[in-house]
């Protein structure tokens, strides 16, 4: 027998879990989340799990602040029986050029105007926060004390378990194979475990979002690019802060468990869904980080992995309904920061789906911005 749902959410990462939770909280019934593998098995579980509010666009600042405020009390709000391991050790951003330093100053002005208490630091002040820092090659810094890190698996599970308690059904190890559209409206979702009759679908499929959109005849202006990470053996806490540089192309922080998690991007990374690990990344990462934080020469690398950034032309997510297909919603294209935006994605998407006024005006993040040519480019990404 076919299943029936008021809404089907495709993707059991942070976005899908948070949307499901918020919809259930608002009283929606018959919510099904379809996940190809298990909760947080895709980009969410592979991410660096840092969270920051130091962005260069108003949208990204507002969404990240809303999310950070949620994280601060998430264990209690979601009544989680585990711990999301939230640590606010701050983010130290390093500029390699005067141009980037000026960009930081513009960003800080914007951030401050939105209630984010970031500030510019001299390199000497940066060294007070991170004494082991080798500032050679850098010209300035920015810092925000309330940025931090949390455990991506437990955070997503906290949302998923809270959603389950409210009646949401999670279909794990289930692959969506097609979405049927009739007269411009969603009719049903076809999976390898059977049909689900529904008039509403949320595409929260992360690295697979463009393939899901294709099923309703929609070409998304996104691509999925591999980004690699490594982690070292845990050691005693010696670095409380995330150290990151956009032009320097790296991020590195010691997570609460003790390991150092670090990553970088590469223009040559594959865009075909490949998430294997490569030597080139390991080489470049080791060279960059041992120069910047020399004591890390002794840190033992125990594992590399990789995940997919679902990247939009302006590095801001696509959130909201779709003009051409009634009942089809997008929460995609997070461009490498979907995890840290998760709580806001859940709140805002549930407001849109329920037909409520949104807490933040996110009409500028609708898919139609690409057609209109109304892009605001996010300058601050690794």
């Amino acid at each position: 027998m076919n299943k029936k749902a008021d809404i089907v959410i495709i993707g059991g990462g942070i976005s899908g879990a948070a949307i499901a939770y918020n919809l259930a909280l608002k009283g929606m019934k018959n919510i099904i989340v379809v996940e190809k593998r298990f909760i947080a098995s895709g980009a969410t579980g592979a991410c660096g799990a840092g969270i920051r509010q130091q962005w260069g666009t108003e949208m990204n600042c507002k969404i990240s602040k809303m999310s950070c405020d949620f994280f601060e009390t998430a264990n209690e709000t979601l009544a989680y029986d585990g711990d999301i391991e939230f640590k606010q050790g701050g983010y130290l951003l390093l500029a390699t050029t005067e141009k980037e330093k000026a960009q930081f100053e513009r960003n800080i002005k914007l951030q401050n105007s939105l209630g984010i208490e970031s500030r510019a630091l001299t390199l000497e002040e940066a060294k007070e926060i991170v004494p082991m820092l080798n500032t050679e090659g850098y010209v300035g810094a920015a810092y925000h004390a309330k940025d931090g890190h949390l455990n991506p698996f437990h955070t997503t599970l906290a949302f998923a378990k809270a959603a389950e308690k409210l009646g949401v059904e999670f279909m794990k190890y289930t692959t969506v194979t097609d979405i049927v559209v009739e007269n411009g409206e969603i009719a049903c979702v076809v999976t390898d475990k059977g049909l689900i009759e529904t008039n509403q679908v949320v595409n929260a499929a992360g690295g697979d979002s463009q393939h899901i959109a294709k099923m309703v005849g929609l070409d998304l202006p996104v691509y999925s690019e591999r980004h690699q990470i490594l982690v070292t053996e845990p050691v005693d806490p010696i670095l409380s802060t995330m150290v990151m540089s956009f032009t320097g192309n790296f991020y590195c922080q010691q997570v609460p468990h003790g390991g150092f998690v670090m990553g970088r991007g590469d223009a040559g990374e594959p865009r075909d869904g490949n998430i294997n690990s490569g030597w080139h990344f390991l080489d470049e990462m080791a060279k960059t980080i041992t120069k910047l934080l020399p004591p890390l020469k002794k840190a033992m690398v125990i594992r590399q992995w990789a995940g997919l950034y679902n990247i939009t032309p302006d590095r801001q997510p696509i959130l909201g309904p779709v003009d051409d297909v009634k009942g089809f919603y997008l929460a995609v294209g997070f461009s490498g920061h979907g995890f840290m935006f998760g709580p806001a994605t859940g709140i805002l998407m549930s407001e849109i789906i329920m037909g409520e006024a949104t807490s933040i005006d996110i009409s500028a993040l609708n898919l139609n911005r690409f057609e209109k040519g109304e892009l605001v480019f996010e300058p601050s990404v690794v």
Partner: protein
Amino acid sequence: MEDKTIVCRCSDITIEEIRQAIDDGYTTFDELKRVLRTGMGPCQGRTCMPIILRELSIMTGVPIEELTPGRNRPPVNAVSLGAIAEQEEDHE
């Protein structure tokens, strides 16, 4: 096996905690790894994986040869960042 027996020596996880997590519905090695950190430490699962797979097989009734042992990732053994940074690039 005693309930308090440590199965994962990297993260001090006992057989009791593993059985509890399997009971909670985490029925693959990959899921247990994300919830408990088993297989995330310096041994990368060499110690705990066979024991966990056996426990999964007993509790779920799935034959051990049908269970997925999780994905292996480099490096094979722990290597210092310094050693990687200073090596000659002769692996092209």
